[in-house]
């Protein structure tokens, strides 16, 4: 059995960088059981005897957020052999606030005093020896950037695990609180393991519901405890939770005063403050924000990203596709199998992979913005707007990523702490037109509105409008009603982004998109190809007589009120559920044109037969809102952690799609109908 080392610390303490350095390439990412909090694990570099578990970045061990509860449960039930607590040296008091709580769990704690280089640059000093003695924990000074101290950290950690050295010194609270704690300790001492007694005692004192349930107290004990706590709360005129928090910070102020010297006076400006004077300035903040967003979008989607698209199309169409076809034919493969592989799978996967460069560039910039500290400012600037329709400032980030791909966008909603806000964000993010919907719009705009650039852009406007209206409406429903979630957010100091971390982050997100192309899309493309080239008696036939066509005919009447009741379009709608970009491919296939791009003149002409301008717009609206692709539905299911909520999201999205398309078509025909 390998030993377990838990890595804990505040968000922005550099914990992730340290984890990357400690584990190298052995890390794997999953979810904590039952919840959507990311679980990262990896072996110590070159040492399979020690597993490092990266706990979520947290400020406290309160019972109120998912991340904190996950951490508590792991520390108490997972029984790690050691906690490495990453502490940001430039933000000592708040970071040590968590340390004191970690120590109370009875597990040995080793402190990695990180960002020592930044501290020194600021001219501040910490007497590490004094601090270490006060806390009763060994301290190693580290810098994840220059990798200083990391070897020492590993050596000390391994040594501590092997020696099973004892835990640190617990925080001492004020006399009245300690008195009450002693009384509680006597009542519950037999119910919990002796190492964790201090932790349980404090949690019971704080009325921690989750701990109370766990202890399963008898009525008599519960009553005795309540009497003790009520007495001190009345005496001190404050809640027990508040007393503990105050005393904890009091205790830390005493410790840091003795060992921490700050060069900068309170009220003077740091470099970070100076940047913020401009970036979050009352008048400049919004223009700067929009300029940054436009710049990212321009580079990722318009200019650089676009260059790669033609190249990938060439690789998959002319190079891979054509050569595999030749190869398969040369070894005597039957024509239908060649068709399945080349026109079905390779063409389908290729059409999705064309988006990868755009996606990667987008994720690169988003990771950059997150790493340097600008993302938190985005939430700060945008919160006011988003709160108005039931979301949080942090919802902006998923929505922005959603312009690329809904899958990573839905995953990005994890940074939203409040479950209600997170659910709503997951539900509404697919309304933002993703990269895969663009070819569909391009096709229809090319066929019907060749000279109106605003038609395609209007999709973004309609999408945003739908998010706003849905937010306002959903907030009124029972499931989303209630007070807005707290928005108490750290604005971390700006720092130079670490390229390695940014690239890892970019790759983690981009990987999801590529995985989707390799799995779901490959299977779906094969399935569609088979459905559209065989009849119910499994004979090879034209598309007209295929299984797909008969399915299309069956559901086509549903779409007649929306203006597109032909079976070809109905089929495209079904295949769009697998991946939006297959809508264009489906038109190509059912029209017998093979794999064609959205700008192909024959395709434009043929598609013209199925729509008029109004039904074309109605179809665009339907595509924009309808249940997202299979991969995004999968991501929704993962983030919602509930089948009920996933279905609610799908039904809601499809309902909005149907209603909006119906209104567009019917009202459009009333107004413009005669001219068409």
């Amino acid at each position, binding site marked *: 059995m390998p030993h377990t080392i838990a890595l804990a610390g505040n968000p922005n303490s550099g914990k992730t960088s340290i984890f990357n350095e400690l584990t190298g390439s052995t890390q794997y990412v999953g979810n904590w059981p039952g919840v959507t909090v990311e679980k990262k694990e990896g072996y110590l570099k070159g040492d399979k005897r020690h597993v490092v578990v990266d706990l979520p970045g947290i400020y406290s061990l309160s019972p109120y957020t998912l991340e904190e509860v996950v951490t508590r449960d792991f520390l108490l039930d997972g029984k790690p052999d050691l906690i490495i607590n990453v502490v940001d040296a430039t*933000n000592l008091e*708040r970071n040590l*606030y968590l340390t004191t709580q970690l120590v109370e769990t009875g597990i040995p704690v080793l402190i990695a005093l990180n960002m020592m280089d930044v501290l020194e640059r600021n001219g501040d000093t910490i007497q590490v020896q004094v601090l270490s003695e006060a806390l009763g924990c060994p301290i190693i000074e580290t810098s994840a950037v220059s990798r200083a101290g990391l070897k020492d950290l590993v050596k000390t950690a391994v040594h501590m695990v092997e020696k099973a050295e004892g835990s640190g010194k617990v925080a001492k609270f004020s006399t009245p609180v300690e008195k009450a704690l002693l009384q509680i300790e006597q009542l519950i001492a037999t119910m919990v393991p002796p190492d964790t007694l201090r932790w349980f005692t404090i949690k019971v004192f704080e009325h921690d519901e989750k701990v109370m349930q766990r202890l399963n107290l008898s009525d008599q004990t519960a009553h005795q405890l309540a009497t003790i706590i009520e007495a001190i709360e009345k005496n001190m005129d404050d809640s027990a939770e508040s007393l503990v928090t105050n005393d904890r910070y009091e205790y830390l102020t005493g410790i840091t005063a003795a060992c921490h010297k700050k060069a900068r006076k309170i009220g003077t400006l740091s470099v970070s403050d100076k940047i913020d004077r401009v970036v979050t300035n009352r008048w400049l903040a919004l223009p700067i924000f929009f300029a940054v967003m436009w710049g990212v979008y321009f580079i990722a989607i318009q200019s650089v990203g676009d260059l790669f698209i033609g190249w990938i199309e060439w690789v998959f169409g002319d190079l891979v596709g054509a050569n595999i076809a030749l190869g398969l034919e040369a070894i005597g493969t039957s024509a239908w199998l060649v068709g399945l592989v080349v026109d079905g799978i390779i063409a389908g996967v290729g059409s999705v992979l064309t988006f990868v460069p755009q996606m990667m560039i987008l994720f690169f910039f988003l990771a950059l913005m997150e790493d340097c500290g600008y993302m938190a400012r985005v939430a700060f600037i945008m*919160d*006011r707007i988003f709160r108005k329709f039931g979301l949080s400032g942090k919802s902006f980030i998923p929505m922005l990523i959603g312009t690329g791909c809904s899958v990573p966008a839905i995953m990005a909603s994890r940074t939203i702490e409040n479950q209600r806000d997170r659910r709503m964000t997951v539900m509404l993010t697919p309304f933002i037109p993703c990269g895969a919907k663009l070819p569909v719009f391009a096709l229809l705009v090319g066929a019907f509105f060749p000279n109106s650039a605003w038609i395609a852009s209007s999709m973004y406007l309609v999408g945003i409008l739908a998010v706003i209206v849905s937010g306002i409406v959903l907030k009124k429903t029972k499931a989303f009603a209630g007070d807005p979630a707290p928005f108490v957010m*750290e604005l971390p100091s700006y720092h130079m982004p670490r390229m390695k971390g940014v690239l890892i982050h970019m790759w983690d997100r981009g990987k999801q998109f590529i995985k989707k192309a390799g799995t779901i899309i490959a299977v779906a493309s094969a399935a569609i190809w088979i459905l559209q080239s065989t009849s119910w008696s499994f004979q090879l036939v034209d598309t007209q007589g295929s299984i797909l066509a008969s399915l299309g005919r069956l559901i086509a009447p549903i779409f007649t009120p929306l203006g597109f009741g032909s079976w070809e379009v109905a089929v495209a709608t079904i295949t769009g559920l697998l991946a939006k970009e297959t809508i264009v491919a489906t038109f190509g296939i059912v029209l017998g044109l093979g794999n064609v791009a959205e700008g192909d003149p024959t395709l434009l002409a043929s598609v013209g037969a199925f729509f008029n301008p109004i039904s074309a717009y109605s179809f665009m609206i339907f595509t924009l809102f309808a249940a997202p692709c299979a991969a995004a539905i999968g991501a929704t299911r993962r983030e919602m952690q509930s089948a009920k909520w996933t279905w609610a999201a799908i039904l809601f999205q499809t309902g909005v799609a149907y209603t909006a398309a119906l209104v567009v078509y019917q009202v459009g025909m009333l107004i413009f109908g005669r001219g068409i």
Partner: protein
Amino acid sequence: MNLGEARPGEMVTVRKVGGEGATMRRIMDMGITKGCKVIVRKVAPLGDPIEITVRGYELSLRKSEASNILVEA
């Protein structure tokens, strides 16, 4: 006076953190506790939230949350 009413640039001392449950605990966990000094930095461009300096770092919170924090100049 509550923290929501303090002006940008003002330094105040926290007297009491009101409210309850998750929000109150979060505010206190972030270091806003009785007796600590807080500087109001600025108000976001659209009028909310506000940015403050507490225990040497920058924190943002909504005015509605700040109004639960009683302070004195």
